């Protein structure tokens, strides 16, 4: 057993309202600068849809993630040898057209325009060429489109039947999918970096690209199946979501989590067994979810605690792990699944799949609807969250429905709570816990983030007076 502490995020898609606040607050803080214009460390996609960059899930095209071979896992991108051969030409990397050409407008013209024949207008100009441009795509182009034969129809997840449903007004469906770096336990980006510039932090599992070491090979951009690594053309370094480590280290949630107006996000510590990950990497798709969950350890198990202490995880972290909302969602309640587990990077970000309105055929249903009446095809959700296995998704939808039915009886004058319990996969305790986490939990309960001090590993006595002066470069005060 090799226990590590891993920060994990849960996104409850049933609460997501698709508002993009997470995207904007992240943008303001981290990528509002030259070279990062097109970077959206956090973005929100409408499903069905092709996302950002377009069709990122199409691994036949982009070759991200891992393949199972007879020798175990292998980067789809190819082995080190193959990669070296392509070192100056990487055909699998997304191009600007797969992202979009970032633009701005001739804003100042609105003020400066000389008297003219017609009203001045601020025309769009490219942030790449500085010239007038036609806007043909953007980072969120298919927002709220739902059925569209130009965009959503290219969603690689859709079956023929789902394509048909999507294109009829009565059966149109959609939901929102916020995405960020998954801070995977088996990160393809780390494996692909020829410079060894990408690493997973020992203490919290956050995956970072060392901005001093990065040599702009950009293999990480290709290798990441989620396309969450971006190349900064100004600094010639690759960059990605840093899980707001400057905030996290101080016990504050990531910006995207704190600003989430739907309150869909939770952050907590998971205690994971790295040895176990190595063991289960190649199981069949259908067993993947179960195997995956078996790598996550019970933080209140005495044996686990003892071993974790041995592995150097301190009390602050263990205490946080014992109250972890992530553990509650994933293991105790079994409500959360990773995105595309079949990529086998083992994400640390998990999603509660959404419920949806009933289909047109079930309009006149009585009471709260059951999961089999809902519009979003189960097969689509299964493709996204459980490698095509519909069982785990259906089970979660049933549990969520049970919580609703039980609470309706309790809160609005019914006497059927017992009956709901009898038929549910959930115990009363689990229902109450799920209800609490989803509706009642305070920010501090949703975000259980241990403090980091670095007191042991650095020279705090010296640093106390120096911290903050540091700037990068040789002439810095920092030695």
């Amino acid at each position, binding site marked *: 057993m090799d226990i590590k502490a891993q920060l994990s995020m849960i996104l409850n898609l049933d*609460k997501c*309202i698709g*508002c993009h*606040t997470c995207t904007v607050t992240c943008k303001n*803080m*981290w990528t*509002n600068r030259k070279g990062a214009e097109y970077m959206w460390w956090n973005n929100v996609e409408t499903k069905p849809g092709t996302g950002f960059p377009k069709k990122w899930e199409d691994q036949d095209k982009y070759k991200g993630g891992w393949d199972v071979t007879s*020798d175990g*896992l292998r980067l789809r991108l190819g082995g080190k040898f193959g990669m070296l051969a392509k070192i100056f030409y990487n055909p699998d990397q997304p191009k600007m057209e797969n992202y979009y050409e970032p*633009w701005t407008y001739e804003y100042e013209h*609105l*003020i*400066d325009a000389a*008297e003219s024949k*017609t*009203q001045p*207008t*601020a*025309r*769009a100009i490219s942030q790449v060429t500085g010239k007038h441009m036609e*806007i043909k795509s*953007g*980072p*969120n182009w298919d927002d709220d489109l739902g*059925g*569209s*034969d130009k965009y959503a129809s290219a969603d690689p997840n859709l079956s023929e039947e789902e394509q048909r449903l*999507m294109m*009829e*007004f*009565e059966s*149109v469906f*959609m*939901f929102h999918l916020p995405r960020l770096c998954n801070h995977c336990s088996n990160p393809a980006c780390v494996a692909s970096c020829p410079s*060894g510039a*990408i*690493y997973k932090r*020992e*203490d919290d599992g956050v995956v970072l690209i060392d901005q001093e*070491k990065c040599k702009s090979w950009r293999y990480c951009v290709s290798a990441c199946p989620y396309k969450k690594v971006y190349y900064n053309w100004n600094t010639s370094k690759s960059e990605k979501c840093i899980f707001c480590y400057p905030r996290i280290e101080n016990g504050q949630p990531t910006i995207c989590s*704190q600003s*989430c*107006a739907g*309150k869909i996000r939770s952050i907590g510590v998971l205690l994971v067994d790295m*040895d176990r990950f*190595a063991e289960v990497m190649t199981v069949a798709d259908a067993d993947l979810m179960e195997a995956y969950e078996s790598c996550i350890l019970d933080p209140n198990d005495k044996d686990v605690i003892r071993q974790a202490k041995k592995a150097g995880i301190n009390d602050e972290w263990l205490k946080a792990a014992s109250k972890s909302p992530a553990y509650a969602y994933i293991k105790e309640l079994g409500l959360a699944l990773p995105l595309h587990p079949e990529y086998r990077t083992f994400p640390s970000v998990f999603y509660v799949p959404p419920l949806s*309105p009933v289909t047109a055929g079930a*309009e*006149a249903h009585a009471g709260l609807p059951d999961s089999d009446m809902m519009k979003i095809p189960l097969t689509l959700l299964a493709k996204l969250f459980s490698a095509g296995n519909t069982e785990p998704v259906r089970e979660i939808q049933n549990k969520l429905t049970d*919580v*609703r039915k039980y609470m309706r009886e309790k809160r*609005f004058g019914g006497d059927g709570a017992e009956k709901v319990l009898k038929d549910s996969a959930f115990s009363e305790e689990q229902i109450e816990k799920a209800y609490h986490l*989803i509706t*009642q*939990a*305070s*920010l501090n309960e949703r975000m259980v983030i241990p403090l980091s001090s670095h007191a042991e590993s*650095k020279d705090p006595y010296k640093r106390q007076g120096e911290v*903050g002066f540091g*700037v990068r470069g040789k002439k810095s005060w920092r030695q």
Partner: protein
Amino acid sequence: MKTIKKPEWFQLIESNKERNWEELYRNRWQHDKIVRSTHGVNCTGSCSWNVYVKDGLVTGEIQATDYPQIGGDIPRLEPRGCARGASFSWYLYNPMRVKYPYIRGILLDLWENAKKKNSDPVAAWASIVENKNNRNAYVKSRGKGGFRRADREVVNEIIAASNIYTIKKYGPDRIIGFSPIPAMSQVSYAAGSRYLNLIGGVVMSFYDWYCDLPSASPQVWGEQTDVCESADWYNSGYTVVMGSNVSVTRTPDAHYLKESKHGGTKVVVLSPDFSTVSNTADLWVPVKKGEDGAFWMAVNHVILSEFYHKRKIPYFEEYARKFTDLPCLVVLEKDSTGFRGGKFLRASDVAESASEERAEWKTAVLDEKSGEIMFPKGSMGYRWAEKSTDKQKWRLEHICGVTGREFSPALSMLEGGERVHVSFDVFYGDKSTRKAVLREVPVKEVMINGEKRYAATVFDLLNGQLGVGRGLGGDYPESYKDTESYTPAWQEGITGVKAETVIQVAKEFAGNAEKTNGKSMIIIGAGVNHWFHSDLMYRSAIMGLLLTGSVGVNGGGLAHYVGQEKVAMISSWASIAMAADWQKPPRLQNTPSFWYMHSDQWRYEKSVFEYFDVPDKTKFQESHNADFSAKAVRLGWLPFYPSFRENPLTLAMRKDPVQSLVAKLKSGEMNFAVEEPDRTENHPRVWFIWRANALSSSAKGHEYFMKHVLGASNGLEAREVKKDLRTVSDKEPAPEGKIDLVVDINFRMDTSAMYSDIILPAATWYEKDDLNTTDMHSFVHPLQKAVPPLWESASDWDTFKGIAEKFSDLSALHFDGPVKDLVSVPLMHDTPDEVTQTSVKDWKYGETEPVPGKTMPKFVITERDYGMIYEKFVALGPNAGKQLGAHGVSWDSSEEYSELMSINGKITAAGEDCPSIKEASQAVNAILHMAPEGNGKVAERSFKALGANTGIDFSPLTKGSEKNNMSMEDIVIQPRRIHTSPCWSGIIDKGRPYAPYTINTEFGLPWRTMTGRQHFYLDHEWYQMAGEALPVYKENLAEDSLNETEEIDETAKGLKLNYHTPHGKWHIHSTYYDNLRMLTLSRGGQVIWLNNKDAEGHGIEDNDWVEVNNLNGTVVCRTVVSVRIPRGVCYIYHATERTINVPLSERTKERGGNHNSLTRVRLKPLAMVGGYGQFSYYFNYWGPIGVNRDTYVFVKKLNKVEF
């Protein structure tokens, strides 16, 4: 399973040295300070934000998460805020930030020349505007660039000169100002309105103009709007959302809807498109656009059948008897076929009670035990009691105010009553074969003026109206399957919603209310409110709530969310904003009537009955909306400024000014300006715009504004039509460019700035101190300066102070001391004016005598000392230290006034010692300290005052809050929750969210309506004449009746669609629309949403450039094609700008327009009536609303894109 070794690529780095680079991102996450502020206009979200400042730069913002909790099981509020708010910091430093004062270059040249010839600035201004060439030179160049940076001193001088010139030449009521929804930055709003009210200018309404005012709210409740805070959604057991896309438009609140679902609430969404909130529902009902009313008529049919007839629900019946007008008696009028509902039976109708004080305003019920007629306490006649014996009877009790006897009001006379046939009008189906239906209704015989008449209860009439037969004879439908009105099967043909769906929703909606004592809720918004017959649609839905006892209950009721707002501290704020601390009355204008006339939209339409369907239009004396508007002014129902062609300062100087004016009006020697709107003397002259995009987002009929108000290039293709006018003159040719000067105070170069003459740089919301409240939550929090006003910008408070100072200085040279001003004021709600006109009698037609304050407006003479404007501006005047109040409640305010002098410091103004409000933060203190919502001591005192009027003990409501008050400093530390107040109708307590009318239901306080109860029945004679006394279904306006598409030429025609402007995801109106962050996350410019099949049929693809037009104007934009949009409709999300990447129109060769280029207003005359109970004027409360959803457009591919 094959196991592999842990891969070697697993770099787990702990080493310090290796990770030193991590400091890079840590250094970005640094700030010198965090400042609490928010976003101060337009959005009712009212979210507290932390603004990060580093090196004197605002680097970003994130929501504050430190609200005090409501408590109980109410989910946490925070983080409140959305993507739009999060992008605000972009506005501070972007390249179109208005950094300096700007003026149209031509105008500056004219001014400099004029100043060389005239040392007096007022004379200089006269030389420009009185010379046709000079005036045309700058007027015609509006909107075409050519701005020049100017000195603030110079532009302030121009502004002051234009104001003084206008006051002297025409009168102060030609100076107007527009700024919307004050609640979000209350002091900034008050800055302009205070200045205008001090000089006698006109403050323009917004809530009605935006079409956000639900007319049904005053009709049913006598209330502008009162809704629950969003936290109360959580308490609902069954929520129907209609016309409101809360995920997009109430983003920070939407989590409550989601959380309520997880707490067991069933959510039903009625929406013609599969919107984001439809996606949130258990059940999405794709009701046909604008047919929500038909759906609800059928729901109510089912509720009456199932819950009042087949079964009886004690809770429902008890509620109906006590809190609604259902038991009230209506006198029936005989007509050719049978009877029809007439007016309420009143004390004045019955011999024994005819001599009662205000007997015409005391309505009646029948005691079910004795069979006798009773006059319940609480009706409006008791509200305005003068005799001591009638006082303290304004309360809801089953006690007769005349006899003092207790009674039990009968809902129905079905048992044992007589029956007569009553005719009910029908407004659907083929017009030529339509006829009213005749249905039996139980009645009671009454003697009125010695004559035998019949009276029925509202409840029995309602059953007749809704077609619930209960075994009665006549044209009643036989079952739910019958397609007679208003069955589930009937609605299916109109709404497209299956009958069984309606039945299920109705049973569950009412069944839930039965189980929970009224925890059924409707969330409603612009999708319904923007239709011409929105009041009928709303009343149909409200009916469902009233029948199920769901109003005045936490978790129940109507939650109307469209641009609604809540200046929580309304009493103290209004005193400052309307300058009532110095003088009354203010000139407050209902904007829809104003611009309908002044932007000459009236000249382009024929009789209103072309599209307004009534049983017999000949019963109305007027047929054109211009005549209706004029009548409303003439009879004192609505305001209109300017009032007369003569200067009100001149009028006021006459001997016996009021009598002589009335005599001239009577003889016809003088007309109201509204009767001759296009005379040169009657034009509005100077227009201040602040916190607003008045020429774009707000300008329904944008191109009419461009042409007639501004005189700018425009895309208007409509032609004037021949009209049959009775009192309004269209003899003058329609003027172009009426306004002399448009002053815009702005931080961004929006469409309004583009077309203004002077732009003053405004401080952004992170650069000033102010106060923010909303009705979406019950907390108060501030705006604060995170950085100083950047470049040469200034806060609105300081900007208007500067103008006031210049104005005062210049006035000293032009006025010898104080002058008198004659102000016309309509009959006002919440005053005894509301019990003046028992019937409509027009003195102009000789039907009655013109009596100010009774049959016509009041004319009040007030004094203005123009040299003192600045002194008064910066001091809270002595009136604020006497009485403060709102909504008809007032209390002694002297104690807080003197306390405020020590809090804010003293200042001397007009010879009086006053609390200083020179700085915005001092004005915030004044607002907080003097109002019940901010000061518990005032809450206690004000409730005592209300108790004295009603005899009700309200003391439980203020217990524990007496010692709590708040100041600017307090709310900077943490948002604070307001106190329960008699100025509002809801109770606020620990664990209890604000829900409206809970004071009414729990303490027996009457609603401010005719009966004191919630109204199903509106007995004003015009409502009867229109067939709208009871809620009724009327079809939406026929496209061919609107003069918008039928005469458009063939070359412009394309795909014809109904045109909607729902609220968008990437902007709050036009704010954030031009923000690069939002433009990048959306489609980068103006787009029109189309259904895929509609688009395909016309060869239109996604992202194509198209031209969209009708006779009102032209838009050039791109398409978004999606299956989730229903066929036959297109959306341009409100609101766009014509400033961002808009090509030229192929058709007009002018720059393409914005969303409002395709609209114009259609006024509903019924919303103009006045002097009659809750149908009495108040600012933003009553008057026609700016509906524009019945419009049609053509969409056609653009051949060539040219900029």
